[in-house]
């Protein structure tokens, strides 16, 4: 019944291609969406395949309405809302398969193909990597092939594919022009849904035992750095992140960042200029080498010397920074700050307090106490491990005197506790330490695994001074990096020994970096930069639009000439003949519509005996060129010449 209502069944090969396109578009979503969505989509797909293969009947409308309502209910139960990014994508995916189950006529085919394009676009919410781009190209090719197939049902699939491929190839110059010249606007245009930026890794604004070691398992890239000159030695590569002052006995927290206070940095030594490409981490802080002296225009320095952006970093950004390796930090040391940097919770860690009290009693000044503490860390046999034993309430005591196994957060936390107990203002600084230079493109790559925590103490002479207790206890961590310090725990690809793997990863990283810089990071600023470098004076959206208009027009003209090529010679012959007929028509010798060229020539020469030879020559040549085998250029030129010289 369904068949009779909708006319002939859809051709099989294009339908199969369309189904393949749907699968290609939806497959990556399986990782991001709820399990029931994948199962439901697979069930609907199986239904459609069975109907098509067995030539069965598609479900009636009321079934589809029920299924659609069920989907909306499922989305609401899963997400508690139907607005937002993930619910939206879920609905789109289910809608695609429901529509596929309803696809009977050519009209439906277009809807399915357009939905495939939307779902392919939705993949980019989650990742825009090179493999995803390749998969999307495949998806678009399949959907386009299906559309070609439906518009010419009798063709072979291979021909449809070649037509679709030709369309895509001919479209690509226009795509490139539009991509580079279309005036870019920095999004978002309106508020984004709450869940738009979930699931990005990075440092957090708290630190408790296990926070940073968990991060160290990830080889995700935190940021990339391109130095103008040679990169500084590894021991100086402290990338400053959030500064943690408040301690409750277990967890360290940031105090509220303050922007408006006067800052002072005394910097010495050769400045280092570099460019950072920061991956989005949904926080405000921007990373820079200690100590940044020139910040990018949209960044501010907090009183804790942390560069922050005014809005959370939600897309990959690029900025230029200048840092100076030798510096003195004197800001953030008002009485309130210093008392906050001395506060420790009342009753915990008695043994550490006793040790600190001993140091205070026996040593004359703060500098000596700090030195003593460093010696303590260096002298005790601490072990650096990503899997430290669990600690109880007196976590500092247990770590310092019993287990002696820990990660950088244990070292930093214990050191700062000791300092505060001894009356030396101190705080924890988190960030990244180290970074590997990719020999392929020269970019330094800093990964989440390079996350680190160290300490700062306030000394009257030198201000806030960095002390890295991890470096004191385990020098290899800072000198050679995390992989050397804790080889068993580091991410697989970061371990040494797998040289070919490392080389392959370097190549891939460099490629990804180029992709990030030029494709994904092509934003309004980079567009202006590139256009000015190409010689456009004062690029604005008006000039860009004009350039776009003319260049796209030019490209289309070239494509059109290419597509319509080869029509010229035949046209020229016909035009010459028509010109000849026009000349005679003015003499009153109009060619009648049914008259062949040779008959016409006979009639004309009867009326114009003086021109007989000429008329016959032209008619004969015309007939030969038009109806004979392939016309050569010389003969066409001769015909044109004869017609031009002809005077009736």
């Amino acid at each position, binding site marked *: 019944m369904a068949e009779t209502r909708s006319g002939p069944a859809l051709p099989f090969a294009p339908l199969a291609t369309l189904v393949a396109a749907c699968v290609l578009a939806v497959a990556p979503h399986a990782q991001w969406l709820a399990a029931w969505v994948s199962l439901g989509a697979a069930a609907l797909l199986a239904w459609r395949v069975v109907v098509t293969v067995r030539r069965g009947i598609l479900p009636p409308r009321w079934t589809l309405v029920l299924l659609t309502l069920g989907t909306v209910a499922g989305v609401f139960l899963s997400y508690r809302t139907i607005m937002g990014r993930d619910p939206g994508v879920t609905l789109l995916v289910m809608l695609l398969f429901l529509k596929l189950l309803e696809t009977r006529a*050519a*009209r439906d085919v*277009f809807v399915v193909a*357009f939905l495939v*394009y*939307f779902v*392919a*676009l939705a993949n*980019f*919410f989650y990742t*825009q990597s090179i493999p995803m*781009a390749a998969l*999307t190209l495949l998806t*678009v090719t399949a959907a*386009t092939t299906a*559309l*070609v197939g*439906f*518009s*010419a*049902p*009798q*063709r072979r699939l291979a021909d449809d594919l070649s*037509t*679709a491929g030709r*369309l*895509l190839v*001919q*479209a*690509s*110059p*226009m*795509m490139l022009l*539009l*991509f580079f010249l*279309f005036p870019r*606007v*920095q*999004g*978002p*245009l*309106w508020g*984004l849904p709450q869940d*738009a930026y979930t699931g990005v890794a990075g440092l957090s604004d708290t630190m408790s035992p296990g926070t940073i070691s968990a991060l160290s398992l990830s080889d995700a890239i935190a940021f990339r750095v391109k130095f103008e000159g040679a990169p500084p030695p590894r021991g100086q590569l402290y990338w400053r992140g959030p500064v943690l002052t408040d301690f409750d006995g277990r967890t360290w927290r940031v105090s509220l960042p303050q922007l408006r206070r006067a800052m002072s940095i005394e910097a010495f030594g050769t400045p280092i200029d570099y460019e950072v490409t920061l991956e989005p981490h949904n926080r405000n802080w921007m990373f820079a080498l200690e100590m940044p002296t020139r910040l990018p225009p949209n960044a501010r320095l907090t009183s804790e010397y942390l560069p922050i952006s005014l809005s959370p970093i*939600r897309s990959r950004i690029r900025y230029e920074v200048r840092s100076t390796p030798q510096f003195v930090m004197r800001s953030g040391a008002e009485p309130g700050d210093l008392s906050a940097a001395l506060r420790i919770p009342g009753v915990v860690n008695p043994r550490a307090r006793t040790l600190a009290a001993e140091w205070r009693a026996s040593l004359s000044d703060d500098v000596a106490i700090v030195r003593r503490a460093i010696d303590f860390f260096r002298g005790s046999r601490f072990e650096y491990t990503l899997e430290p034993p669990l600690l109880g309430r007196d976590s500092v005591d247990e770590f310092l005197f019993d287990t002696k196994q820990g990660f950088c957060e244990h070292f930093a936390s214990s050191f700062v506790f000791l300092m505060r107990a001894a009356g030396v203002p101190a705080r924890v600084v988190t960030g990244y330490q180290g970074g590997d230079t990719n020999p392929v493109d020269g970019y330094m790559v800093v990964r989440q695994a390079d996350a680190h925590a160290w300490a700062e103490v306030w000394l009257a002479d030198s201000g806030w001074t960095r002390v890295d207790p991890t470096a004191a206890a385990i020098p290899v961590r800072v000198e050679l990096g995390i992989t050397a310090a804790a080889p068993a725990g580091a991410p697989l690809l970061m371990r040494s020994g797998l040289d070919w793997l490392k080389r392959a990863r370097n190549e891939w990283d460099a490629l990804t970096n180029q992709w990030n810089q030029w*494709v*994904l990071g*092509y*934003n309004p600023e980079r567009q202006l930069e590139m256009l000015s470098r190409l010689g456009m004076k004062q690029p604005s959206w008006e000039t860009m639009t004009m350039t776009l208009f003319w260049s796209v027009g030019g490209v*289309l003209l070239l*494509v*059109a000439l290419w*597509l*319509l090529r*080869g*029509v010229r010679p*035949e046209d020229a012959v*016909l035009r010459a003949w028509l010109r000849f007929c026009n000349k005679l028509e003015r003499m009153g010798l109009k060619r009648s*519509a*049914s008259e062949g060229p040779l008959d016409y020539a006979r009639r004309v020469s009867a009326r114009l005996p003086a021109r007989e030879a000429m008329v016959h020559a032209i008619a004969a040549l015309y007939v030969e060129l038009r109806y004979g085998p392939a016309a050569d250029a010389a003969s066409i030129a001769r015909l044109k010449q004869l017609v031009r010289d002809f005077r009736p």
Partner: protein
Amino acid sequence: MKFDRVLQYSQAYNFYQWVSRRRGPEPGVVYLTQRRVYILPTRPGLIFGVALILMLIGSINYNLSLGYVLTFLLAGVGVVSILHTFRNLVHLYVSGGRASPAFAGDPAHFQIVFENRRDFPRHSLELACGRATARCDVPAQRHSTVELALKTEKRGWLPLPRVTLDTRFPLGLVRAWSYVQPELSALVYPRPDAALLPAPESDSDAGDAVSTGTGTDDFAGLRSYSTSDSPRHVAWKASARSETLLTKVFAARASSELWFDWARLPAAMGVEARLSRLTRWVLLAEERGLRYGLKLPDKSVPLGEGFPHRERCLRELALYHG
């Protein structure tokens, strides 16, 4: 005059002439120049445009660089497909083929011949003329013939009306179309009614009684074939055995000659009713293998038989002007 010649080059003017049906039929081969191929987006094409705008807004809002790439690639595909659709129709040679005659009320078949001189095939060309539609492909450097079955109503010449030729290949997002009207006419015979053959007039010509009505003719034997014999009466099986063509001779056939006379029909019958009746008789007589003649007020067709004779009688009936 000169102004008219300038106007001929204007696409809009050409289009206006076609739509207002000022253009008459064109003899010979029509070459579809670029000026006479029109192109506009289809409904899916417009929806595609809206979808692209939504995708662009989404890409801007979420800062999706690859979203821009995808949107612009699809926009490029859409624009390039306009050129492909245009190319699929333009520079084609169209001419009229044969137009087969039909009885009024039956469809008349008009052949339209396409010639593709280019080195790429043309796909899914759709022809529409009134309610009649047809579809064809023209391979590279080949001819293709397609038939349009047009409904007929009145007897006489039926000229082929304006034919709309359109294509949506390759994506269906745009439609290119052109109007052609090859000079081609089909002859429409009067519609036969359901009468039986009349009894022969014994006084008009010598002859024996002829069976009327439904009775079958008696088979009388075989004789050698002569060129005026209807192929229907050739005894194919017997001929195959005897090496010469043999014709079946029917008892009734040899002795029957019929005149179908306009004037002898009942006076109450109108012109068209008379023509219908005469048409019916011609068909029946030819089917039976009789010799028959036709007498119209202004014309008569002498006695004869066979297919050309039938055609001649029917033609006179179709073109009769009372």
